[in-house]
């Protein structure tokens, strides 16, 4: 299996504060990879670097086997807060990335409209974000992210601010969507169950400075059942690895 994205020995410091330390990880094409770790461990910094917003101090990044210097506009990036603009309709929010990539307006709108149904937003094209529910806003933010046709999606706790029910329905929906989209997804969460429900591979990161604690490949068939014995075993296993990290972080 060829690696879509490979990161080796990445370091990042803010002054004297070391945030990433010798971090290595990889993601195959169309793989759903989750990064899990204590809050504030530096996961988001990694995404900032990959999105081209910050530069690493040391380390290598490989894209399709080629050395790669991250630049804005190469990977699709989605933050926990949806960042939807209240003065734009759902449709106009969705096309933002295409607009910035200089796609003609009409073409961008048609492309976006084609996906509104799959994202459960049909009929809300001309609604404003503040007229949408939390789950719909997040789906719209993901639509905006997906629409730019980047092969790699960086999703930074996209469901973190949602209530449990909405969250669980969006998780199922995201899996169905990924069946069709077939993108390489890097997904940040600090919810072990979410990681196990969604991903092919889970990277467990230590507290800051973030380095790799463990890798867990999840070979369970979809849709996964949290009550499944193997699921329960993996969950307690990951929690076991995470526990000292979370405790140290709290000290």
């Amino acid at each position, binding site marked *: 299996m060829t690696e879509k994205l490979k990161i080796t020995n990445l370091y990042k410091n803010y002054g004297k504060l070391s945030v990433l330390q010798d971090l290595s990880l990889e993601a195959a094409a169309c793989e759903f990879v989750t990064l899990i770790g204590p809050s504030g461990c530096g996961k988001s910094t990694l995404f900032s670097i990959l*999105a*081209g*917003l910050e530069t690493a101090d040391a380390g290598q990044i490989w894209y399709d086997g080629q050395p790669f210097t991250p*630049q*804005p*506009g190469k*990977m699709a*990036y989605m*933050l926990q*807060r949806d*960042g*939807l*603009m*209240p*003065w734009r309709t759902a449709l106009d929010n969705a096309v*933002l*990335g295409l*607009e*910035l*990539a200089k796609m003609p307006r009409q073409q961008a709108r048609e492309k976006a409209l084609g996906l509104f149904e799959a994202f459960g937003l049909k009929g809300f094209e001309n609604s*404003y*974000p*503040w*007229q949408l529910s939390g789950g719909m806003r997040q789906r719209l933010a993901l639509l905006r992210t997906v629409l*730019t046709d980047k092969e790699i999606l960086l999703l930074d706790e996209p469901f973190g601010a949602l209530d449990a029910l909405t969250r669980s329905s969006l998780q199922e929906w995201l899996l169905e969507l990924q069946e069709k989209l077939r993108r390489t997804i890097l997904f940040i969460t600090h919810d072990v169950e979410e990681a196990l429900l969604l991903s092919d591979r889970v990277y467990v990161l230590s507290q800051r400075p973030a380095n790799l604690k463990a890798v867990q490949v999840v070979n369970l068939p979809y849709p996964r059942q949290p009550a499944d014995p193997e699921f329960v075993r993996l969950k307690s296993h990951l929690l076991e690895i995470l526990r000292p990290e979370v405790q140290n972080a709290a000290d």
Partner: protein
Amino acid sequence: MRQISGWLKAYGPAFLIIGLFLLVWQLYVELGSVSPNVLPSPTRIFSSLLSSWEILWDNTLQTLYETFIGFGVAFALGFLFAVLLDYSPLIKRGIYPLLIASQTVPLVAIAPLLIVWFGFDILPKIIIVWLVCFFPVTVGAVDGFAAVDPDTSRLFQAMGATRREIFWKLKVPSALPSLFSGIRIAITYSIGGAILGEYVGAEKGLGRLISLYSRSFSRSLVFAVVFITAILSLLLFIGVTLLQRRVMPWYFKMRGTGAGGRGNS
């Protein structure tokens, strides 16, 4: 029909209170036998207004002209200045306190000086209007630019947006609510600024009429000018509000639905 009843609900109380106020005023002057040289009655003011209509209108146009130019300059410079302050935190820290301090200088002290420096022409009036309007417009814009959602800004950057795109597509729309608050304050004070400038020394304008009528003890005409001033300020305020509804209809809908806050989270 629904629109009319909506307007009645919104503005009816204000008209009712103004009507009551005028009625009490009229009765007080007539029943209390107050001399019209001390306080003219509303009907007397109104008849002076009608009889001197032409000269009042002519001078009103002059004042409006000065107001618009002064406000226009203040808006353009205030906006540019706000961009500069937003661009450089250092300049902002250095200049912002000066800007606030400048607002404590009484204009009545400055106005005569401006006449001395720039003569009786239109320029000193424009400067005074500018002085009045510059501050609210600048503060409105600066606060507006500062209100940009940092996550949305990151998103723009990650999508490869240029500084210019971030400015026009994100910062300016984000700043509009605050900018319009500043503009509403500025436009309401602007007429008063122009009148102050004219009062100190001018050949034409409502301020000059006030000075002229005061000295010739034409009290009812002074009040007529005051009445015109109030109406003008109100109309300008309404004009700005209507413009804002055109420029950012989403903002009024959002507030109308009570979909709280800046709707940005």
